[in-house]
């Protein structure tokens, strides 16, 4: 379906009435707006992100477990598994999903002084 008839029948007389276009003026050639760049940005935000916690020799194991339980609402055994993964492998992915909540999780973890980063899932 084309939008041109509507443009020609409705918009052009209106514009002529407002701007006082001469009758012999060429039809307007205003094109439809492009939103290509904005769409790309939204897609970038929709890409899954992950919240990663990194090993830190200072933070106590019991403290890290408590933080995981509080921030993510994980049961103790799951929080403990993640803590051990951080301890043995140096890092653990605690959560993945949309960017905005991931940022909030990282902020909360920093509030507890854990080393946490936001990473894009490739």
């Amino acid at each position, binding site marked *: 379906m084309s939008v041109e008839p509507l443009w020609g029948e409705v918009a052009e007389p209106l514009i002529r009435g407002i701007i006082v276009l001469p009758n012999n003026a060429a039809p307007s050639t205003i094109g439809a707006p492009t939103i290509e760049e904005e769409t790309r940005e939204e897609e970038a935000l929709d890409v899954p992100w992950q919240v990663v916690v990194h090993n830190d020799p200072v933070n106590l194991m019991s403290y890290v477990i408590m933080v995981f339980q509080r921030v993510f609402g994980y049961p103790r055994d799951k929080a403990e598994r993640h803590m051990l993964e951080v301890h043995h492998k140096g890092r653990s992915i605690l959560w993945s999903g949309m960017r905005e909540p991931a940022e909030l999780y990282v902020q909360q973890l920093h509030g507890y*002084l854990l080393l946490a980063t936001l990473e894009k899932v490739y």
Partner: protein
Amino acid sequence: MEICRRKNQIEISELDPFLAELLRQIPASANREGAPAAEERIFSAPTNGSETEFRSEWRMYVEPELRRLFQTAAQTVAGDLEQLNGNEKNLANRTLRIPTKHADAWLNALNQARLVIAVKNSFTETELNDHLHSPIGSRRDLSLFQVNFYGFLQEFILRELEC
């Protein structure tokens, strides 16, 4: 030193002057002034990548909030520690009572202090895990003892929170 839970308080009693002084040093130990490495650790980067725009936004909007959070925790602890103020000669057998509603502030301030001391002294993981370290013979040994003592307090507070 004895530590136990009494109703809505954590009570640390039989505090000798040395341990009382270590407790009084918590807020000062958490101070990062003049220690860029400690500042960098406390306010660590939110990404490992090169998202410069996000990192500058983080510095602008998130870090001030974190700074306030850490400062409030340190102030709460400093307030509780005023119980230990007074005649230095009477520090023996002092008792410190921490309201359980201040437990989170204590956990946070103790963690700040432990992290800052560890960064300032560049303690290795081996050193931090050596709980059978020889008696204090240097400033560095004292700092390591301080980190472990604060860790012990954290462990106790955590246990009480779980109950």
